[in-house]
């Protein structure tokens, strides 16, 4: 059980983290979502004990970290945002070193290394220098290095940044295995799709503040619409048609893109028939019909008025 209580961190006048609060039960996967500079890394660093907060506290199983050598640190595994590896050494030597930092040696260390390499699929490259690895392989090794001491809580700071889709999938598979083993994952990202795929709960941070903290279904409820109908008409829609649509009680929003009508609705099964029926009755037959799900991207846009990517 990890509790983060009203964490604040100031760098001079800049409030990098401004009252972040959330908690993660054992086995839960939390997505820390936010644009660049939101304060994700700072929050993760404070949880790992690398930074001391200006105020607030982090509790692990109800206890704060006390000092550098607190054994509670063993419950945490940190996967830094930067590739924290020695290029000059082999994968094996890297892992031996990081394992030894947690006082592992001999057979337990060898076993832990083998398991970690196995999980990330790098067992056959163990003896190669890390400098010769691809970006994706380095990312996976970066993950493996945090697993050696078998921590309960994994802090993953953008673990897929800068890798191709294939490597990203491989890392996701690794994370799903860890999740199935009952690990608590704190997953930092600014990719909505990643958060949607992996996380049980999302904590959305912007400018150091938590602006939402909920499960996926509940977050979707925050949206004014859950679905967007894309209806292609035989003739381009005109202004009176749009006005007429917006007057319908089932329609939350409506706009036209060429011959396509985009209509936002809340309840797919209840609202759709009435809308389609109305169109036909008004003399606007449709040639194609599609439904788009509203995404978290839209949630962020809705909460902040800004898009996640370009902020």
């Amino acid at each position: 059980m990890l509790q983060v209580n009203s964490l604040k961190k100031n760098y001079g006048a800049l409030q990098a983290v401004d009252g972040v609060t959330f908690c993660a039960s054992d086995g839960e996967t939390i997505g820390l979502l936010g644009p660049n500079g939101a304060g994700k890394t700072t929050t993760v660093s404070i949880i790992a004990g690398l930074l001391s907060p200006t105020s607030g506290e982090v509790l692990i199983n109800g206890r704060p970290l006390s000092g550098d050598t607190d054994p509670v640190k063993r419950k945490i595994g940190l996967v830094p945002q930067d590739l924290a590896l020695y290029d000059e050494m082999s994968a094996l030597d890297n892992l031996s070193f990081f394992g030894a930092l947690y006082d592992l040696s001999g057979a337990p260390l060898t076993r832990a290394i083998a398991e970690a390499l196995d999980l990330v699929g790098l067992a056959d490259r163990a003896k190669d220098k890390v400098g010769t690895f691809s970006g994706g392989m380095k990312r996976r090794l970066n993950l493996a290095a945090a697993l050696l001491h078998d921590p309960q809580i994994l802090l993953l700071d953008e673990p897929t940044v800068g890798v191709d889709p294939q490597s990203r999938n491989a890392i996701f598979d690794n994370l799903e295995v860890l999740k199935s083993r009952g690990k608590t994952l704190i997953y930092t990202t600014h990719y909505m799709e990643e958060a949607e795929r992996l996380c049980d709960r999302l904590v959305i941070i912007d400018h150091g503040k938590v602006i939402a903290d909920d499960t996926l279904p509940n977050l979707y409820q925050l949206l004014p619409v859950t679905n967007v109908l894309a209806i292609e008409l035989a003739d381009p829609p005109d202004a009176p048609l749009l006005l007429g649509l917006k007057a319908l009680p089932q329609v939350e929003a409506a706009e036209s893109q060429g011959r396509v009508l985009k209509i936002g609705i809340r309840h797919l099964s209840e609202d759709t028939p009435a809308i389609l029926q109305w169109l036909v009755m008004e003399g606007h037959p449709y040639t194609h019909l599609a439904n788009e799900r509203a995404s978290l991207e839209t949630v962020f846009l809705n909460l902040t008025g800004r898009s996640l990517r370009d902020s």
Partner: protein
Amino acid sequence: MITPLVALVRRDLRLFFSDQRSVLMSFLAPIVIASFFGYVFGGSGGKTETSKIPVLIVDQDGSDISRQIASGLTADKNLEVKVVSSESAKELVRKGKATVAILLPKEFGANAAKALFTSDGKPEIDFFYDPSHRMEMGMAQGILTGQVMQTVSKEMFGGATGQKMASDALARVEQSQGLDKASKSTISDLLRSVEKFNNENAKAKVDGKPVSSGGFTTPYQVREEAVTSGTSVEYNGYAHSFGGMGIQFILFMGIDVGIGVLLQRQRGLWKRLRAAPISKTLLLSARVISAAIIALVILTVIFTFARIVFGVRIEGSMLGFVGICLAFSLMTATFGLLIAALGKTPEAARGLSVFVTLLLVMLGGAWVPAFIFPQWLQTVTKFVPTRWAMDGLDAMTWRGLGVDAALGPIAVLLGFALLFGAVAVHQFRWEAEG
């Protein structure tokens, strides 16, 4: 506790020795440069010859005396004499082909003898010298003075022209305006005695009796002995140069230690280290230990090389030598930590610390020995740790002093280590960035 410490130290050693650049810089560079300096500054003992001073002589006189002076100078082991014409002499000095040119004018021999007892009418010797070689100029002048005194006086006491010279001189003394009555009669007596001495010698020659050949000579002879560890031990320039270059390149290694910490911080490795349950003390001690080990290895390798190739020996206390090496290694390690603590970025830290290191090395007397510094500088550099390391190493190697001479340097070096370490710990930014 032990496992992480060993792992940290092993990592540092592994990273250092797997980096060809650092190995090259730390072992090959000091050996090459120290060999060069050692060779240029005296080499080992009397085996290498010091270069002679090139001297030109223009003999416009051509008398017995001037010829004897020229051959006397030629025989001197410190000079390399060439007799040339007067036109070329000045030109050769200007071009740097010779350090000094001596011009003996017409009638020099005769006039010099006459002027031996009176101050008027002294002949002039033109003495051209290369201003970039003042020290050699002074030396050549000294040798010339001795040679002229010896030759001229010898000619007067029993030389072929001695009879005439003595009577000429006597006549001059009688006529001299510059001498008072009492001096005149005393010098005249002296010259008459010389006349008498020469007459007796001439008679003795005819009779076949042994002739005493007189003349002034320098009333002493120099017996040179360099004072080192013992009469059997010769000064070894390589001992100084290897110590000096060892100090310089070990400090460079110390810079790399500091830069290494800053790089670690930049690369996020620092986060992993800090996330692990290990103390700050452990992290820093590991750095100090590994840096000290590397420094000791470097010192051992380059002094072993110096011993095998140039015969540099620890003539003094081995214990003292090891003690100084250890203390200096520790100081280097904390110097590295200081750079890590005060440096912002690796790039910025490197430039400044290389400059500071070169200053330390220069003021420590690693390039040119501190004993040729002016007095004030020798006093000021007492506050420079490298000066103590250098003096300590000199004391234990070619000076051949006992362990008690090592205690001062060891204490001072450990003091600096403590100071650097304390400032480093105090200023260290423990927080991981970003």
